[in-house]
C-alpha cells in the first residue's frame, strides 16, 4: 500500500505542481480580467505548449546528462549552432550545392565581383586586365545561366497543374526566365542582390539534407563534450563551459557574424506547422512540434526505465565507483549520454529554427540554464542518479506557464525572472526536505 502510494506520488507530484501553477494563473487572470480572461483559452494553451517544445526536447537531453552525474552548459550554444547550420543549409540550398558544386546565389555573387572588376579595368583603360577578365566573366555568365536553367526545370516540375497563372510558382518561372535572359546579355550589369533570388525555391532534398546536417551538428557537439570529459578527465562543468563559447564561435563563423536568414520560399511549408500555434488538422489539439517533444519524451522514458543503457546511466550517476566495480564501461556510457543529449539538441534546433525562421548564433545564450532548471524543478539531482522524464516535462511547463501567465497579468519581465528563480529554489528545497524526512 505504502509502496503503491509512493510510486503514485512520483507521478502525481509533478502533475500536481503543474496543475497548481496553471490553476493559480487561470484564477488570477479570471479575477482580474473577468470575461476577457484569456489565460485558460485554447489558443493560449496551444501557444504556451508550442513555445516550449524545443525547451522540453533539450531538457530531455539535459536530464540524461544530469542523471549520469554530469552537466552541460554548452546546450544553449549547441542549440544555436545547430539551428544556424540548419538555416545556412536552407539559405545555401545545400542539395543544389552538392549536386552542382555551386548554388545560384553563390554563382551570382561570383559573377557580380568578376563583372565589377572587368568594369573597373575597362574604366581604367587597362587593356591587359580587360582581356584577361573577359573570358572569365563570359564563363561565369554561362555558368549562372546554366544553374538558373536547372532551377527553372526544377520549378516547372514542382508546379502543380492547377496552379493559377498569377501564383507564386508562375511568377517565379517568369522571373527566372527574365533573369536568364538578363544574365546572357553580355554587357548587362548584374545587381548586387538580384530581386529574382527571392523567387528561387530550394531543391526538394535541401530541407532533408539541412535537417541531417542540423542533427549531426547536435550529435557532434555532444560527442565532443563526452570525449573531452572522458579522455581529458575535465569535469563536465568546465569542459562544457569551454565548449559553450567554442560552439558560439563556430556558429558565428557559420553565420558570418550576423544571422542566417533564408528567404520565405526557402523555408519548407511543413516547417511552419512544427511551430504553428494552431495544428493543421484541428483534432491534433497542439502543434506537431509539441507532439514531437512528447514522442521523444516517451522514448527517453522507455530508454531510462527499460534499457540496460538507462540502468547504467542511473548507476553511473548514483555511484561511479560502483559502476566501475560492476564492469560497466563508464567512459563509453558517458560518451553515449552526451551524444544522445546532442542528438536531442539537434532535433530541438529544428523546432527552434521553425519558431524564429532565422539562424542566430547568439539566440541560445543562457538557454542551457533554462534546460537545467526544467530538470531540477522536476526533481532531478545535480549530484546525479535522480531525475524523471515526467518531472522534467512538468518543470518545462511550469516555466512556460510562468512566462506566459506573467505576460498576461502584465507582470514585468523582472518580476517574472524573480518568480522563476524563487520557483527553482523552492522546488529543490522541497525535494531536499522530502529526502531528509525519509532517508
Amino acid at each position, binding site marked *: 500500500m505504502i509502496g503503491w502510494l509512493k510510486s503514485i506520488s512520483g507521478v502525481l507530484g509533478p502533475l500536481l505542481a503543474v496543475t497548481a501553477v496553471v490553476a493559480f494563473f487561470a484564477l488570477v487572470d479570471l479575477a482580474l480580467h473577468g470575461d476577457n480572461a484569456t489565460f485558460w483559452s485554447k489558443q493560449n494553451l496551444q501557444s504556451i505548449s508550442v513555445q516550449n517544445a524545443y525547451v522540453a526536447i533539450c531538457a530531455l537531453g539535459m536530464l540524461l546528462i544530469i542523471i549520469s552525474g554530469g552537466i552541460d552548459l554548452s546546450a544553449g550554444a549547441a542549440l544555436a549552432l545547430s539551428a544556424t547550420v540548419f538555416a545556412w543549409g536552407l539559405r545555401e540550398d545545400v542539395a543544389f550545392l552538392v549536386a552542382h558544386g555551386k548554388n545560384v546565389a553563390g554563382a551570382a555573387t561570383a559573377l557580380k565581383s568578376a563583372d565589377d572588376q572587368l568594369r573597373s579595368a575597362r574604366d581604367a583603360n587597362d587593356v591587359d586586365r580587360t582581356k584577361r577578365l573577359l573570358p572569365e566573366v563570359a564563363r561565369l555568365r554561362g555558368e549562372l545561366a546554366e544553374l538558373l536553367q536547372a532551377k527553372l526545370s526544377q520549378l516547372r516540375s514542382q508546379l502543380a497543374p492547377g496552379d493559377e497563372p498569377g501564383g507564386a510558382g508562375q511568377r517565379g518561372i517568369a522571373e527566372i526566365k527574365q533573369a536568364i535572359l538578363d544574365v546572357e546579355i553580355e554587357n548587362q550589369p548584374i545587381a548586387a542582390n538580384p530581386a529574382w533570388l527571392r523567387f528561387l525555391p530550394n531543391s526538394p532534398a535541401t530541407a532533408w539534407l539541412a535537417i541531417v546536417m542540423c542533427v549531426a551538428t547536435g550529435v557532434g557537439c555532444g560527442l565532443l563534450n563526452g570525449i573531452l570529459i572522458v579522455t581529458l578527465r575535465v569535469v563536465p562543468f568546465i569542459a562544457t563551459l569551454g565548449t559553450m563559447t567554442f560552439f558560439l564561435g563556430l556558429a558565428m563563423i557559420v553565420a558570418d557574424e550576423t544571422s542566417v536568414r533564408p528567404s520565405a520560399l526557402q523555408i519548407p511549408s511543413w516547417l511552419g506547422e512544427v511551430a504553428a500555434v494552431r495544428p493543421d488538422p484541428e483534432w491534433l489539439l497542439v502543434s506537431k512540434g509539441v507532439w514531437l517533444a512528447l514522442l521523444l519524451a516517451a522514448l527517453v522514458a522507455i530508454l531510462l526505465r527499460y534499457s*540496460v543503457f538507462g540502468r547504467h546511466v542511473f548507476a553511473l550517476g*548514483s555511484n561511479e565507483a560502483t*559502476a566501475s566495480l*560492476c*564492469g560497466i564501461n563508464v567512459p563509453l556510457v558517458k560518451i553515449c549520454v552526451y551524444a544522445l543529449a546532442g542528438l536531442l539538441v539537434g532535433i530541438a534546433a529544428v523546432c527552434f529554427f521553425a519558431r524564429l525562421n532565422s539562424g542566430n548564433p547568439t539566440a541560445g545564450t543562457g538557454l542551457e540554464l533554462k534546460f537545467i532548471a526544467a530538470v531540477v524543478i522536476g526533481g532531478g539531482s545535480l549530484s546525479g542518479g535522480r531525475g524523471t522524464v515526467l518531472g522534467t516535462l512538468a518543470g518545462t511547463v511550469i516555466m512556460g506557464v510562468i512566462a506566459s501567465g506573467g505576460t498576461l497579468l502584465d507582470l514585468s519581465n523582472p518580476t517574472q525572472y524573480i518568480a522563476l528563480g524563487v520557483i527553482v529554489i523552492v522546488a529543490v528545497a522541497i525535494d531536499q526536505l522530502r529526502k531528509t524526512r525519509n*532517508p
Partner: protein
Amino acid sequence: MKMEGVCKRFGATHALRDVALEVRAGEILALIGENGAGKSTLMKILSGALAADSGKMMLTGHNYSPSGAHHARVAGVAMIYQELNLAPDLSVEDNILLGQECRQFGLLDRGAGRRIAKQALARLGHERLAPQTFVGTLSVGMQQVVEIARALASDAKVLILDEPTSSLARYDVDRLFDVLRTLRDNGLAIIYISHFLEEIRRICDRYTVLRDGRTIGSGSVRETSDAQIISMMVGREIAQLFPKVPHKVGEPIVHVENLCGRQLPVDVSFELRRGEILGIAGLVGAGRTELIRTMFALDSVRSGGIRIAGSRPPPSTRARIRAGMGMVSEDRKREGLALSRSIADNITYNRMAPYTRAGFINLRRRDAAAREWMKRMAVKASGPDQPVDQLSGGTQQKVAIARVLHQDADVLLFDEPTRGIDVGTKAEIYRLIGELAAAGKAVIFVSSYLPELLAMCDTLGVMSRGRLVAVRPVQDWTVEAVMACAITNDAIETDTLEIRKTSPPPLKETTT
C-alpha cells in the same frame, strides 16, 4: 594529561569502554592496538573532534573537556593525523599560523608571525626551511615537520601522532624520531600511535594497549617483551560464531604472478585453488585492498599478471567479470553500492544479460530473480524496488554480496566483508563463504579481524608493506605469528618506499 573512565558509543556499538590513559610531561607514550581497537576514537576525543559520553579528562591538573578541535588546540593538545592537514597552496609560514594568525589592529602582523614560525622551526632543528616555501612543493617528511611546527606554535603541551611513519621513507623516519626526542627532552608529552613494534622500541618510553575499546595494560616498553605486547593486543578468545561448512580443496584456478600495482602491491605471487578460502591478513595500508583491486583490474597493473582457469583476461574489470571473477568492495557506501538505486538494480548491475533482449530489460523477470536472491540471502526489505540507502548496514552488505552470487562468479574476492555489521549477519556471511567453497568456488577473504580469518580460511597469507610475506596453511599460523609477521619487517629488509623513491620501475600496462 590523564584520562579516566572514558566511554563512547556509536549507536549500538561501544567504541570505548572505561578507558584510562596517562601521559606525563617529558615522555613518549605508545598507544598500541589492533585496527578498530578504538585508538582513533580515543584520540579524536582527546583532540576535541568528538565528545566523550562519560569519563574525566585532566590536563596539567585542570579539568579538560574540549568543545572542539580549536578549543583543544588552545588548551595545548595538538593532533597530527595520518593524513596531513595542510593547505598545499599556502606557504610554510601561513600553514604554521593557520587559525592562530598574529593580529595587530585587526590586520595581519606578518613580522610577529614570521618570528613565531621561525622559532617553531628552530625548535625542531629545521631553521633552514624558508617560511615562504609553498607546502605543496615539500616532501611528505618535511610537510610533517610543518605540522609539528604548527603544533609547537600553538604552544602545545600534548602532541598526538597517529601512524606518523606510514608514508615516510626510512631517512625521514630517523629525522622525525630525532625531532620527537628533542621535544620530549623539552618537556612535551607525546602520544605515539603505531603498529610497528620496532618503532615503538626505538622511540617510546611507556605503552598502553587498547583492545575492543578497553585499556588492557600499560607499562614500560623496556620491561615488556614483544610477545607480551602482542598477546595483549590480540588476546581474544575465538568464540563459536564461525559456522564450519566442510569443503574440499581442488585444482588450482587462479595464478597470480609477480603482480605489481602502481604503488601497492609489490611483486605478489600466489596460487588459488577451487574450494579454497585464502585469507589475507595485514595492517591497514599493507596493500591488501590494493592487491584485490589490482587483481580485479580496478587499479592499474604495473607489471606481472594473473591467469584465471588457464586464460589471461585483458586488464579490464569487464573482462575479469566475464572470466568469472567477482569482488565485494570494502567500502559499501563509496564503492560497493549505488545507494540511491534499488536493491534489484544493485544485485543485477554486473549481469543483466539473462533478462535482456536487444538492450531492453524485462523488469518483471529481473525483479522476480532479485526477489529470489533476497530470499536466499534473507535480505529484509519491502521489496526489490526499495532504494539501498534505506537498508541497515548488514542488509546492505548482503545486497553487495548477493550481486557477486547472482553474477555466479567462480573466483570471489571479499574485502572486509564483515566490517561494521552485527554479529548475527557476520555468522550468516561466514556460513555463506563456507558454502561457496563447498560449491567449488575459490575465495579470497581479506580482513583486519584475525579471529575470523583463522577460523574460516584454509590458507592464510600475511601482507606487509605491499608484499605478500608468507602464505601457509591456516593450522600453521597462530595469532601471535600473524601479528609478528605483519608488524615486524624481518621478512623484507628493503624498504619499499625507498625503492620507489630511488628507482621507479618503468610504468607500463601489461596485457595480461
